[in-house]
């Protein structure tokens, strides 16, 4: 049974015409059902709990990469046997990685149900799919002057304020024992206090600024503890408490894709 979820605040807007086209294609493959909307991560979490009880075999997120990552963030609510599908409405880096190049391609992939397994890791009480970025939300006196990162071994690193990213290296089997890479770069210009949180996040995690800034640190490990996360926000707008653990939990998810070396289900 296929269940579709859609973020009502998604940046990927679907007009009525496209919605009808998508439903028509889904119906051709007999995998059509109503799109259920959610307004927040909390609502999605509640929705997934309900879907989990209704023996949905596949949960499909309709939207963009941001929406996909919101679903992954709340993946703890989904049974391990449930497959995750992605119906991208706009250009998508994640869909490309799954070899899905359009919404039509995605519909065909959903019908074929070829599964790719991927291990994802936790950050605090959520999960992240490939990379999650953390940076200071505001430049003011409340920002900690240093950030401490401790690895699973006894390595402790003290950094100045920085933009930090945690990347899931799971697909590179060489790093099975140390599947998460942490990188830290010098932060960009401070964002003014008057900007809205959304504007700040957009500015902080602007694609250009993510790749710029001098490299301060880069290493791999299994688990990280990050201290000094009080004023840090991630690229999904979530704030964190002082100490954040990354990689404490892992979960194998079953993704519908068109990749080779997949098993049918």
């Amino acid at each position: 049974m296929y269940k579709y979820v859609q973020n009502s605040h998604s940046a990927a807007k679907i007009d009525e015409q496209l919605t009808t086209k998508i439903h028509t294609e889904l119906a051709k493959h007999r995998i059509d059902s109503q799109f259920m909307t959610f307004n927040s991560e909390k609502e999605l979490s509640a929705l997934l709990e309900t879907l989990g009880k209704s023996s949905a075999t596949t949960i499909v997120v309709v939207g963009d990469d941001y929406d996909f990552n919101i679903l992954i963030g709340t993946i703890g609510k989904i049974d391990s046997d449930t497959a995750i599908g992605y119906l991208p409405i706009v250009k998508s880096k994640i869909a490309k990685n799954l070899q899905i190049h359009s919404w039509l391609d995605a519909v065909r992939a959903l019908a074929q149900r070829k599964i790719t397994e991927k291990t994802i890791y936790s950050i605090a009480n959520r999960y992240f799919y490939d990379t999650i970025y953390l940076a200071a939300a505001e430049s003011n006196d409340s920002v900690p002057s240093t950030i401490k990162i401790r690895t699973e071994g006894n390595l402790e690193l003290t950094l100045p304020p920085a933009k930090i990213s945690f990347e899931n290296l799971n697909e590179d089997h060489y790093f099975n024992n140390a599947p998460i890479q942490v990188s830290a770069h010098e932060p960009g210009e401070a964002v003014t206090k008057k900007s809205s949180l959304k504007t700040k996040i957009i500015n902080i995690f602007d694609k250009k600024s993510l790749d710029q800034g001098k490299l301060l640190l880069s290493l791999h490990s299994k688990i990280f503890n990050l201290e000094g996360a009080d004023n840090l926000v991630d690229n999904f707008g979530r704030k964190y408490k002082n100490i954040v653990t990354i990689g404490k939990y892992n979960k194998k998810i079953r993704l519908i894709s068109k990749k080779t070396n997949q098993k049918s289900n």
Partner: protein
Amino acid sequence: MTSQSNKGHISDLVGFSGFYIGAEVVATGDIKSEEDVFVDGSYKGSIKTTGAVEIGKNAKMTGTIEARSVVIEGQLKGAVVAVDSVYIAGCGELSGSAEAKSINIDTGALLKAQIDSGKNV
């Protein structure tokens, strides 16, 4: 011991994806790796790797290193054991000991160390 320059530093590699501790970072603890390690910050601890280690110009390290090869361009207090080679640049400082199949020391390097070269490690 000769004063030949050692080419091919880790820091010259494009897309270096090993262990990197920059000049602004203060680190303590042990590093166990199968990759190359580049330390350019302040570090107290031990490094054990099957790859290469480079102690950068800005680095101040106290501890021990066991690696395939070691390049010292900053300050190191401790023991170095390398399977292949140890190179101490003209701007490097070593107090402690170094043991490797081959050891090269550039003019200008500061040494207060026991050197043991030419033997299989």
